[in-house]
């Protein structure tokens, strides 16, 4: 049966040559570009603040705004309870969820997670490891978010060095 690994190898070489690889299972990247980027937000001060009228603010919200602006996506906030938002995220109906994540949450293995955000509430505060929850199975989307985050880290490091 040496044919199967060989076939797999050929397939890999073909894939490595593809421009649009990896792709999303539910076209999340295309949906963000064509319609809007839907982001769930739970009140989780100081990182995410959701006001009574549904306005979302805080460092993590700024990060998401920054990402949407950089890619030209129209951003639509979906404030709500954490579990309800995560259920939506698991079914790939949201592009991301910020706020309310607990490291021991049962949602941990069900959805994707971005790189650590490296955010501080102010310059001297501690930097807890916080991440954005992403829909599972959306490989291209996940790559886009993480590349943006890495780029941002680099810019900030560059800024600090100067």
């Amino acid at each position, binding site marked *: 049966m040496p044919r199967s690994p060989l076939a797999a190898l050929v397939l890999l070489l073909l894939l490595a040559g593809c421009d649009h690889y990896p792709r999303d299972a539910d076209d999340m990247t295309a949906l963000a570009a064509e319609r809007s980027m839907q982001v769930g937000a739970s009140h989780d001060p100081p990182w995410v603040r959701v006001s009574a009228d549904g306005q979302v603010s805080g460092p993590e919200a700024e990060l998401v705004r920054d990402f949407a602006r950089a890619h030209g996506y129209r951003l639509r906030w979906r404030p709500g309870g954490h579990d309800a938002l995560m259920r939506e995220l*698991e079914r790939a109906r949201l592009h991301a969820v910020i706020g309310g994540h607990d490291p021991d949450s049962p949602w941990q293995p069900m959805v994707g997670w971005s*790189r650590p955000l490296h955010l501080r509430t102010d310059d001297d505060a501690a930097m807890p490891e916080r991440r954005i929850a992403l829909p599972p199975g959306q490989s291209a989307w996940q790559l886009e978010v993480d590349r943006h985050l*890495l780029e941002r880290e*680099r810019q900030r490091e560059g800024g600090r060095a100067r």
Partner: protein
Amino acid sequence: MTSSAPRPPPRALPEAQQQALRRAERLCWWTLLWIALASTLMYFSMGGSQTMKTALVEDLLSLVPPIAFLVASRFRRKGVDEEYIAGRERAFNVNFLISAVALTGVGLALVYDGLHTLLTATRPVVGTITVAGHVFWQGWLMMAALAVTAVPPMILGNKKLGLARQLSLKPLHTDADTGKADWMTAAAGIVGVAGIGMGWWWADATAALVISCNILHDGATNLRGAVRDLHDARPQKLERDEPDPLPERLCAEISALPWMDGCTVRLHEEGLHLSGIVLLRNRTLTAAQLEEVRAIAQAVDWRLDQIDVSIDDRAPSERR
């Protein structure tokens, strides 16, 4: 206790087979070492891919056949004693059953995981990794890890298959089948992860399901073989598709004796050996004739061990 007559110790294996058995034990140690390494590698490169998770469960289950083989060959060496008056030759039959159950377990685990993913439409989570300042899709790492883990079970399995043929030892064949299940799952995993990259969330589970059919088939065949052997059923060849020709050969050799009126044999498998009874249609049997029959049995093949000789006093109509 005094009334029990312990069986004579089993026939010693020929030198070539003794060496093969020692090599098989060494291969099993290598297999254990490899599985431990591979499971660790898999654990650290594992995303939420169903096949990656299943590959880990499968790795743990595939520890069972080599461990059982090592235990069985040690146990067998103790031989006949006051407690085990018929010897410990069947250690490998027990080993065969345990290994067959483990292999079937591997197949069932794969079927369960694959169906679960497909029915709940779970999107596998494949994240990213950062290497040298660049963000890469974790799928590449997973595929590389799977490709690396596919190679050793292929090599070890092939070697075990050769030794299993030389020793006509079924549990070792099952161990080789488990190795085959290992590398085939890894290959399916590569296809599955590559499919996830295409945006086909179902690719991983489907690839695992296709492979699991093959593994379940192997498991069921081994299980049937193990149950047959524990019932002293008619000996079968190692590949379990045809009857073993050895009983026929023994019967033919004995029938060639000039004083012989006819003979039938009832042999069964005891681990490495075949044992059983030779039934002669002669009315009487002298001690010299008995010795002659036993000598032939010893000479026909190294696998023939405890051969009892008796007179077949059934009426011709009862004989089949």
